């Protein structure tokens, strides 16, 4: 994927050496070979001690090697972005023939205030909210028939991220780094970026739950522009020369200690971890420092927080980070129960150019082929207008309620069909109708693109083999290129 300052395989023992020298159990094989085929034992200590983030092969060759998840938290309206509904426009102000119960009361049909036009060679219809993303239409694979379980944020966020709306389960990024490790040992394997604070459900969105803590998403507040504030404890408080001399003395001390304690590879692994950390201080500052990008690249992404975090995303992916999740902002910015037109316009303007630039930039560098980009929220919004309700909205009657029955998500790169539309909602956009895709199906498909059978990427915990898709999920083959 990209060049690396070091090959992590050289830092640690090879698998065979490990098996012969320190006697890894089956769990060790699982983690260093094909995860899930042999489940890791519960709380398996020593095996995890040996660099759990070392890169690993998937179960079968996957098209995608890394994932970028652009999370439009709050629930962007599919009807105003990627799922045009002329029928809804016709019925504007009238009662829809079909009403579904959502979180709050809704009323008459509410047409999209935005114009749609055909984009790219494929003629994909995209609304005026995303003109520049629309220009990349030939890369996009839009799923218009997504559906989830309930119309509430908390469970829907957890379902999208962790495969279960209520219980504590590992995030997709944790599963992916558990399965594949990471290509860069100087950076975290799973990074979650959100400017200005947390989305709702907070760190649960990138939790490792029962998977080892090292697979948890590393949160980065992209409100900051100083790279030193983005990764914890990366800021060296001792002069570089002094720290080097400290580590040299430490090495001598540890080598003497190890000499009398043969056959314990944990000691060597820990010694190496200090060397890795020493290099990480340089590399991480570099990865997050977008001022090192040439002027024209920075121009392409534009100005502002979204531009910064998209550009950081590309720098991380380029350096081999496995899973990057980018949140639009703290709380739930896309949750426009009121003033949908004004707010959606503002939000889209913030991220349209940066997202388009990210796609272009990845493509230019040949990274898009092996990087799966996913755009979407936790659900979509109702085709009907939200009615006033005391204590929950301002009652302006110009917004939409949550809609888990039908919504859109798009994928790009990483082995999916470009310029493709999959499935559809009913004529009003209320409910997935043709070829419905449940969130678990999407997750199964993502794991497939990475080279995993979602039923076999498992972790043994509490007497049971757990997986991202629980007991559900079907790979949507029509999406695959």
């Amino acid at each position, binding site marked *: 994927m990209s060049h690396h300052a070091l090959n992590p395989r050289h830092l640690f023992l090879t698998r065979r050496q490990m098996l012969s020298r320190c006697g890894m159990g089956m769990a060790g094989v699982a983690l260093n070979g094909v995860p899930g085929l042999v489940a890791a034992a519960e709380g398996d200590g020593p095996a995890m001690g040996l660099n759990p983030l070392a890169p690993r092969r998937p179960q079968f060759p996957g098209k995608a090697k890394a994932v970028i998840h652009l999370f439009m938290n709050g629930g962007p309206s599919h009807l105003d972005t990627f799922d045009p509904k002329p029928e809804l426009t016709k019925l504007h102000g009238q009662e829809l023939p079909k009403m579904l119960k959502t979180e709050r009361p809704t009323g008459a049909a509410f047409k999209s205030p935005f114009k749609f036009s055909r984009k790219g060679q494929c003629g994909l219809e995209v609304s005026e909210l995303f003109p520049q993303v629309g220009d990349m239409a030939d890369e996009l694979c839009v799923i218009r028939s997504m559906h989830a379980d309930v119309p509430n944020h908390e469970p829907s966020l957890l379902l999208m991220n962790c495969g279960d709306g209520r219980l504590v389960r590992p995030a997709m990024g944790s599963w992916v780094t558990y399965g594949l490790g990471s290509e860069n040992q100087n950076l975290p394997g799973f990074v979650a970026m959100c400017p200005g604070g947390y989305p709702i459900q907070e760190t649960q969105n990138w939790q490792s739950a029962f998977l080892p803590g090292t697979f948890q998403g590393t949160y980065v507040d992209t409100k900051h*522009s100083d790279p030193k504030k983005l990764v914890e404890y*990366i800021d060296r408080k001792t002069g570089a020369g002094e720290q080097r001399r400290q580590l040299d003395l430490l090495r001598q001390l540890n080598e003497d200690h190890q000499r009398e304690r043969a056959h314990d590879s944990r000691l060597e692994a820990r010694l190496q971890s200090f060397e890795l950390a020493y290099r990480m201080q340089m590399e991480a500052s570099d990865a997050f420092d977008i001022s090192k990008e040439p002027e024209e690249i920075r121009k392409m992404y534009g100005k502002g927080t979204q531009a910064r975090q998209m550009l950081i995303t590309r720098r991380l992916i380029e350096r081999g980070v496995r899973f990057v999740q980018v949140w639009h902002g703290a709380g739930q910015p896309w949750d426009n129960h009121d003033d949908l037109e004004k707010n959606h316009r503002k939000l889209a303007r913030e991220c349209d150019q940066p997202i388009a630039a990210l796609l272009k930039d990845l493509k230019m560098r040949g990274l898009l082929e092996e990087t799966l980009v996913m755009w979407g929220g936790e659900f979509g919004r109702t085709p009907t207008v939200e009615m006033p309700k005391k204590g929950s909205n301002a009652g302006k009657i110009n917004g939409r309620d949550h809609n888990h029955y039908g919504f859109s998500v798009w994928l790009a790169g990483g082995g999916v069909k470009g310029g493709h539309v999959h499935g559809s909602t009913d004529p009003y956009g209320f409910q997935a109708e043709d070829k419905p895709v449940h969130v678990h199906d999407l997750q199964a498909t993502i794991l497939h693109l990475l080279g995993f059978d979602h039923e076999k990427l498992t972790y043994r915990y*509490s007497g049971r083999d757990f997986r991202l898709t629980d007991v559900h999920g079907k790979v949507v083959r029509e999406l695959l290129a």
Partner: protein
Amino acid sequence: MPVRVPAAVLLGVIALLPAAVPGGVSLDGARSHWAFQAPKRVALSGKGHPVDELLAIRQNEKGLTLVPEASREVLLRRAWHVITGLQPEGGILAGALSERKGSLPDWSARIVDEALASPHFGERWARHWLDVARYADTKGYDFTAGRLFPFAFTYRDWVVRSLNEDLPYDEFLRRQVAADLMDVPVREQAALGFLTLGRRYLNKHDLIIADRIDVTFRSTMGLTMQCVRCHDHKSDPLTMADYYGLYGVFDSTEELPEGELPVISIPEDSPGYRKFRDELTARANAAHDYAAEKIKGYQRPSNPLKFDRKAALNKLNQTERGKYRGLLAKLDELEGSSEFAPARAMAVRDRVTPREPVIFERGQLGNRGARVPRAFPAFFRDDPDRIFKRGSGRLELAQQLTRPGNPLTARVCANRVWMHVMGSPLVATPGDFGLQAQEPLHAALLDHLALHLMEHRWSVKALIRHIMASRAWRSSSVSDENLAGNDPENRYYARSNRQRKDLESWRDTTLQASGRLDRKLGGRPVKIHAAPFPGRRTIYGLIERQNTPSFFRIFDFPDTSQPVVKRVSTTTPNQALYLMNSPFLHGEARATAEATASHGGEKERILALYQRILLRRPSPEELVRARVFLGSAEQGVRQSAGAWSYGHGRFSRDSQRVDFKPLPHFTGKAWQGGPKLPDRETGWVHWNSQGGHPGHGDHAAILRWVAPRKATVRISGELSRPAGKGDAVRGLVVAGNEKVVSEWTVKPGGKVETRLVLRVVAGQTVDFLVESTGDESWDGFQWAPVIMEEGGELPLAEAQAGFSGPALDRWPLLAQVLLLSNEFLYVD
């Protein structure tokens, strides 16, 4: 206590099992599953220790010979690590190593007894149990109420005390499930925190109950009840009827409202306590006043701290309820946070009328299926017809869990105790003893340990003592070619396992080395991960279930959403970064070095450092290396570790010069003249990350920045004087120690933008001075300048983000190396 119900009875039970067979599970398989049999007694020859004799069965089959015994030094460190999580120090260390009389086993037994008598035993072993009990001080994701459980700590302290007092393990379990229904002192109700302090799942009742069922069964019997919520167990003899039978038990149990939790200890009378009482009464009266205003005929109780919250809430409308609840919350908040507040137990009680459970099909609330009785899981009942009859059935549940005929409870406990003593469990899945759990290699040994536990009044201390009296425990942890080849995982225990310190023992022993360890037992949790890094033991750190601070996550602290029986252990560069760069470790390195400062000579001081941290003398080569390291270290040329320096002094209008004197003392949050303010010489002068305070006369507060290169810089920031009293302060920026480039005066309560553009050359100083005009009282100010390079996107320097404590000097640098060593982290 003799075991009254041997295998025959258990088999009888199984034969009587009801016809309700769980779907897909072969009952024959379950009946013959090794873990579901009563522990069997094995005939022993009586030669040697039973543990060694039982281990030898397998060792001989494999042809393995034991490695030699470890040295006394190693055994002493090992014993204290296993038992207390601390290093032996001072008198204990010297005493144990000079008292070499008698055989090694006798000596070893003495040091083990000494460690077991230490109150720090309870702290170490309580932490093991708290992992299983998914302990945290906060509720998890919940924005309807305060996030903190104000009294979780009383449960934690109960666990520590019970272990120190060696409360029999069966009783230890029973009280955690049903203390309120037992004839025990009120303070024992703190044990019920076991049930109540789980994650709150946005107050979804069915999920809170699921958590309670799960923690109860996983911790005691090693059974997983999670899956049975939605379907019969795929491998174990557990059904949905079993699950909802237990659901009924917990559904018939209710939490006490915060204000009604039983008081378990009242602090001694003191001015602080009286002040607390007065404030509490005032807040209570505010709530009564409000209720009296809104409710006709409201009866004020004679004791203002008594409330009938329910009755009052029922008589208020929605808006009023919100207000009334807010007033009550203020009351609870004071009770939960004041150190003078009486401690309370997070107790539960039975509902007046028990609820009759039904099965929720597919685990969906409201999808009501058949009715089931409240009862113990059918397969594990002592009598198939026995259902719970008394109230919720919680006490009967506790009794079933701990009845001597229960084949699992003692085994599960014995396996955990063995794991914590020996470094690896006998049953590889210590949280699951169901059908998927393989029979352990040393099954006879596990049975022996389980019987030992039950026959020695369920004494955990006795079991630890028993294991640690074995030759196996005394073995060296050094492997050899033969063992490395034939038993690399040490499944046969022909040697000892080298143990890595976990988060708690690593941090606690670091505090020991620096001399900062606070040995006080118990109390409210403290934020140990943030400055000023209190020296309490790690077990007293505030555990946040949601957004667990990275300090905990980095060092493999377990998830607190669910029981964790065995922690994972990782080695990551993030740990190394923390050890290399964190303010905590730098503080410890500095304190450790300072603690050896009284040793005059360099050699003596090095010896003292080695002794403090590694409990030994350095070898001659190590001594030479340390001296070379010290000799080549840069002398303390820099005051702070960052780009800024913090000082006091004056700007002379005549000579146009800044007389800058660095502030000598760093509190962890601020630079100042000495440990206490006002300082005799410099008065109130100090700097923190946001601003500071000038002194009188010649003691302006000065923040100094040195330009790293030639550049045009843009300085921004805001100088403000928040207090509305006193007189004005004057801010100056002096460039290159020669001219005032800007000057502002800020009146009380006022503020001013401090913007300017400057050309600087490498090494040039830029000083930010704040002078007092007139009297320095109330002159506290905020000023945290940001320096950008013209055209650059990132700041060259930011006073707030770049605020830092002192740079490490050469002795702390050496101390830090020793604290980072593998020798310090791994216990042989």
